């Protein structure tokens, strides 16, 4: 398994993820792309601000890819995450997996994004017209 981990303020490139994932043995590739939505619980979102514990986040993303590859036979795993200020429609995260079969690729991709959201030290602040909040901080 090869993995490609990015965490930076630069815009993410879905094409690069796609090119990285392709191998002659991979029959199925699944790519999840998150985008900044224009609303949250009926409130209009102005922008998002992402902050990361950079060194730890990269380490945890590498660990996450390794755990995923133990659960499913993945050929390639890409985890690209952006930090800084993002406008509506911009892309904070792209996760891609290639496997021999599609079922494994779907399961692995879903596991990666679910677990990323639970365990990677990255924080997102939603900014509304009348204030802001750190997402998921409170019960």
């Amino acid at each position, binding site marked *: 398994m090869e993995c490609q981990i990015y965490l930076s303020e630069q815009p993410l490139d879905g094409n690069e993820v796609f090119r990285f994932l392709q191998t002659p043995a991979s029959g199925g590739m699944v790519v999840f792309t998150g985008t900044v939505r224009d609303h949250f619980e009926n409130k209009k979102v102005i922008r998002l601000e992402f902050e990361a514990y950079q060194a730890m986040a990269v380490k945890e993303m590498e660990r996450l890819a390794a755990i995923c590859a133990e659960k499913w036979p993945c050929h390639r795993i890409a985890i690209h995450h952006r930090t800084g200020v993002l406008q509506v429609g911009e892309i904070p995260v792209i996760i891609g997996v290639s496997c021999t079969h599609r079922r494994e690729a779907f399961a692995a991709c879903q596991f990666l994004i679910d677990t990323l959201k639970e365990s990677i030290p990255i*924080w997102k602040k939603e900014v509304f017209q009348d204030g802001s909040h750190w997402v998921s901080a409170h019960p």
Partner: protein
Amino acid sequence: MKTQSAEKLAIRILAFGIAKDILEDNVIWMEIKPGSKVSDLKEVLLEEFPDFEKLRYVRFAINESYVDDDHVISQDDEIAIIPPVSGG
């Protein structure tokens, strides 16, 4: 005769996200007794900054890895408070 404070370790703690807002800084210094565990640090922190009680959870990382409550803190550790994450 040593003073009480001489027996303490000065540790530096990184803060991110809402933890940074609660501490009003992205790094704070604290003094802990040698042999203190993460649970001891957590207790002191919650006492001084009760806003942490309102969070879904507070975890700690040492040297860029998550640690359990019974992890013993060393002087040179890079310690970070990890409030509820929300990447993706």
